[in-house]
């Protein structure tokens, strides 16, 4: 079964580059270049996965997430950006994206990431893993909801390995668990990231390490 993908990015060169790099298991059903056209294309083309740029005219990726997910759509988003700003990264994840990868990702890795997101799993780049570890570590305030506001030891281990550049398969081997279990841990971290009430999570980014 091929995965239907919509590419949303305001750089035409980048869209065609991604199109060329994706493997045979991916079918690019369309492209969009701003918030309006993205919302329209998602409604019309019904892709499985939307590759979403973070910075775009008309409100950026977060606006697309808000409008599409707000209308009850089940489409899955994978954020793809050149931005390293923690607030951007955390922002789109909390907005509902199921993963975040940087644009210098290789074609194979991107194909793999799309497949994972299409299956309902989460995709973390090393940098995102680093941000999440940082965000959950810098908790002076006691957690409001212990289940959502802190990571388990195992989740921390998985994130650390992702940050160290390990692929899911390598993580599974390292921790003597199955790839499926690794995916479960990452999805659980994603859920915490999205649902945690720790409001400083989104704001932590700007203040971090400026002590």
């Amino acid at each position: 079964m091929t995965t239907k993908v919509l590419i949303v990015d305001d750089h035409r060169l980048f869209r065609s580059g991604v199109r060329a790099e994706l493997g045979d298991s991916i079918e690019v059903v369309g492209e969009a270049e701003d918030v309006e056209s993205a919302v329209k294309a998602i409604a019309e083309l019904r892709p499985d996965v939307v590759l979403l740029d973070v910075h775009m005219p008309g409100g950026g990726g977060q606006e697309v997430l808000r409008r599409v997910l707000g209308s009850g759509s089940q489409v899955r988003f994978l954020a793809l950006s050149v931005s390293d700003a923690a607030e951007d990264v955390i922002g789109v994840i909390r907005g509902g994206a199921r993963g975040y990868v940087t644009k210098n990702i290789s074609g194979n890795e991107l194909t793999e990431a799309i497949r994972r997101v299409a299956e309902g799993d989460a995709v973390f780049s090393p940098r995102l893993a680093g941000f999440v570890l940082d965000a959950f570590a810098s908790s002076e305030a006691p957690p409001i909801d212990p289940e959502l506001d802190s990571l388990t030891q195992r989740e921390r281990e998985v994130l650390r390995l992702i940050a160290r550049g390990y692929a899911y398969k390598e993580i599974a081997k390292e921790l003597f668990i199955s790839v499926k279990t690794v995916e479960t841990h990452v999805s659980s971290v994603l859920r915490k990231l999205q649902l945690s009430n720790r409001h400083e999570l989104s704001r932590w980014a700007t203040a971090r390490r400026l002590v």
Partner: protein
Amino acid sequence: MADRPTFRDAPPASPPEAEDAPFPRLTRPVEGRLVAGVAQGAAQQLGLDPVVIRLAFVLLTVVSGIGVVAYVALWVFTPRRPFEGHEPPRDWSQFTAFAAIGLALTGFGWLTGTPTGGFGTWPIAVGGIGALILWQQAAPDRRKRWMSGAVRGVRHNWIRSALGMGLVVIGGIGFLAVRGEWVRPGLLFTAVVVGGLAVIGAPWLAGLWRELQLERRERIRQEERAEVAAHVHDSVLHTLTLIQRNANDPREVQRLARAQERELRNWLYQPVQNADATFAGAVRRAAAEEEDAHGVPIEIVCVGDQDLDGPLRAMVQAARQAMVNAAKYSGASVVSVYAEAEPEEATIFVRDRGKGFDLDEVPLDRMGIRESIIGRMERNGGTARVRTAPGEGTEIMLTMKLERL
């Protein structure tokens, strides 16, 4: 002061601009000047004979000395009109004539005992000169705006304007009445006049203040934009040129692009990290330098941070050696570095997916791993573990316990 930046905005040369701009900016012409060209310029601007202006200056000087002050102030704040070629000489005979008139008037006043303005006139005079300077410095369209703003203000609130006018008139009459007697009532009535003017001009002053603030913000914004432009020019454009010049050397192109990307990212997103003072900053710098030196991308993720002390410095050195090894010998296309600083422990992982090696077969004289990495870590109270096998890539794990008081 003659070549202040406003100079650029001054009308190009001599009179013709008088027709197209009703209020041209005051400039000091060279031809026809007696002292500095202030009177000549003012006369041209107001459409009067310069003699009238000169006489006014002389009279003001004789009466209260204000003439000299006004002249000097205008001299300082007025740009000189551009003039090319040999400067014409001054007409000293005219100058002498005006000086003689001034001296004669002074003598006459002294002989007849005519009272001069005294202290009381000074605040008004200074305020007037200030307003005059502000006025003549402003560009024509802004003057028009001020005027229309003032007119609107008066129309909108005629009660306040009438009150202000009343105060000005009372103050003026009182001032004239007590003139030359005591200083104190003179000052008091001066204050009344100033208060009246303030009441009339309050909305106008507020508008002026707002406009100045707006202008200041705009200037700051422009300065910022200029700084960004300068940065982009110095770095990005420069690198793009280099990339085009090295287009046939893919390795060099990649190295340039990576270095530029890193530099831009740091500038855009990274909080300022002092590479000499913090652990994460030092690791980032080491990775950046080795990436530049060997042309292999080094992906770095940092979590947390600590102040850089002796043992941590040694640890960064060891990590740097690990990066060098990975970049030089592993054959991997990318090296991953993960550095984490917790309150009680710091760890660095340097990993590649390259060809790996057999640790036992490393010759004893190869100092890289044994000395520069493992030895250095142990001497500083830390540990280093090497995980590698042929074909499996290599990962070096450095750990350092932190002793914090």
